[in-house]
């Protein structure tokens, strides 16, 4: 009997990423950054990972993902004000509302792919953004939904207060660990492999018996749920929810993070991209007023010469080294 083909449940890369993030609060202030920045990075890393499920894994170029992130943020706040000021209830509301939004969008666009998919997601993103701005009664309009509390995390009898940035950071880290682990499993599950197959060849997938529409819809909804979760956490970090995360630009930023990091070739690429994006904003932003100019230029260069992103650069370097060591390299289509 042939051996089963399994992927490790826990990888070294996973442990390294988690450990690095876990150590951040210990040194972030020593390098002149601040805890709140760490919280934002972690949340966006999670968001980018969730987004990459759609872009990198399913090959669906969504340009309106900010909608789901934003819906999650608003849902978190609204649940807090109108349902119950309980962290778990609010996070569930964020996930649930994003799922509904995702399902609604999926209903309209799951038969599409490529540029048309991108165009339709832009249109949907704009609709959600527009509603967020105009529905004052619900969202507070352009001023945003204010006074969202950082609710305490209750676990049985223990209660963790998340008011400080460091406490919130660790809470977000726990969620991040759970989400990244879950995504790792999804990507390597039968479902995940079918989605990957659909990305490569939709027609063939159909002819081996898969209902492509359902898989495309499902992956969008899952991605929307996790984006909404990140959005809920973001509203907690900001103590408010604002419409601009739903704008075309912010939706574009998450695409940039994912690509710059190398989401097309690497599972952890989006995380690298989110870190690079935020550090660039804070560090280049402190030196020159036009940091976006430099970030935009490097993005253009990357798209032109190395669309596989930072992770892609690393992989080809590693491959070159491996080639030097051993002439035959077994190609591997598993996500790394």
């Amino acid at each position: 009997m042939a051996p089963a083909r399994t992927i490790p449940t826990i990888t070294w890369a996973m442990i390294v990423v988690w450990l690095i993030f876990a150590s951040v609060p210990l040194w972030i202030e020593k390098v002149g950054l601040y805890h709140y920045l760490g919280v934002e990075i972690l949340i966006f890393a999670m968001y980018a990972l969730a987004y990459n499920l759609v872009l990198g894994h399913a090959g669906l170029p969504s340009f309106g993902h900010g909608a789901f992130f934003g819906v999650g943020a608003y849902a978190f706040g609204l649940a807090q004000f109108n349902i119950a000021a309980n962290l778990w209830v609010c996070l569930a509301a964020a996930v649930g509302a994003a799922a509904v939004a995702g399902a609604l969008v999926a209903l309209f666009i799951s038969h599409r792919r490529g540029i048309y998919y991108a165009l339709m997601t832009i249109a949907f993103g704009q609709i959600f953004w527009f509603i967020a701005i105009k529905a004052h009664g619900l969202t507070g309009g352009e001023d945003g939904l204010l006074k969202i509390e950082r609710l305490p995390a209750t676990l049985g009898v223990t209660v963790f207060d998340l008011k400080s940035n460091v406490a919130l950071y660790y809470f977000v880290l726990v969620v991040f660990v759970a989400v990244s682990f879950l995504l790792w499993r999804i990507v390597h599950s039968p479902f995940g492999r079918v989605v990957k197959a659909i990305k490569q060849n939709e027609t063939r997938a159909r002819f081996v018996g898969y209902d492509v529409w359902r898989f495309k819809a499902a992956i969008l909804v899952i991605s929307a749920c996790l984006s909404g979760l990140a959005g809920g956490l973001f509203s907690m970090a900001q103590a408010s929810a604002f419409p601009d995360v739903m704008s075309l630009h912010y939706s574009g930023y998450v695409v940039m993070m994912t690509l710059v990091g190398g989401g097309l070739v690497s599972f952890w690429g989006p995380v690298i991209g989110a870190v690079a994006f935020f550090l660039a904003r804070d560090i280049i932003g402190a030196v020159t007023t036009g940091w976006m100019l430099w970030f935009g230029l490097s993005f253009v260069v990357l798209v032109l010469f190395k669309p596989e992103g930072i992770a892609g650069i690393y992989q080809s370097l590693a491959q070159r080294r491996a080639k030097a060591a051993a002439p035959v390299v077994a190609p591997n289509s598993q996500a790394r």
Partner: protein
Amino acid sequence: MTSIVNLLPHLLNGIALGLLFSLIALGFMLILGLMEQINLAHGSLFALGAYFAYALCAARLPLPPDWLAVWAAVPLIWRFAAAVVLAPILVAPFGLILERLMRRTYGRDPLYGLLLTFGVAMVIEELIRVVWGTPDYMLPVPQEISGGFIMLDLIWSTYRFWAAGMAIVAMAVVWVIVERTRFGAMVKAGAHDSEIVQALGIDLTKLRVWVFVLGTMMAAFAGVIMAPLWGIRPHMGVDAVVPAFLIIVLGGVGSFWGAAIGGLLVGMVVGLSSAYASEWSMLSMYLLLLLVVTFRARGLFGKKSVLEV
């Protein structure tokens, strides 16, 4: 009946707006039609057109002071006319550079073209901020075409109607080029099958350059025309590119009449809905889009395109 009379001005206003939308969408459509590339930098080229026009009209040019004084003494109407003609020409080289960059993405997933132009749009917007700063500018309009006139007991902006007229002229020129010249025939052939173009011995590379330049100049021209209406600011490109792509999807990729009628339709819907709920009027164009593409997947006049795969 009074309600219909009340609506008429909004409809007229919508038609004028629609013609201007069509104008913005047209250059976008040319590039999308032939190259099957979404040019997200279209809006930035549009903005550059407006800024160059501002530099010319307001006599803010990098020239020696005495030359500048001579130029500033030229009557505004001539400066404005010069801007209408020169701004698109000045922006054209940016289109050339962009096309050079785009070449690397031909034959790859169209997503890369989209991302590349997203990045370029960002860079151009930042460059504008570096050169002109963040404040808003208004493009001075010559006396002859500014002000208002009375119609239906309301005052109307003369410039708005003049601009709509210019949009019609520009669209007519594009129509003649696409439908009545050999160049247009090649463009259309290329839009349907680039293999045929090559088989006919047409240099596709050159054709693409020319289409890109034409599309760029259209964008810049639209920028000049829209500048007095929308004001000039670094971000104006996004305001233009979003309706443009929407109109193209609505009208159908690769169709001249799709872009023209799509623009008009969007303008009228925005105009009419603003009569009832002005603050929601911009949402109406997205709802229109959803409605159309739900029932007609390729838009009103679209043909099957490789973009769908």
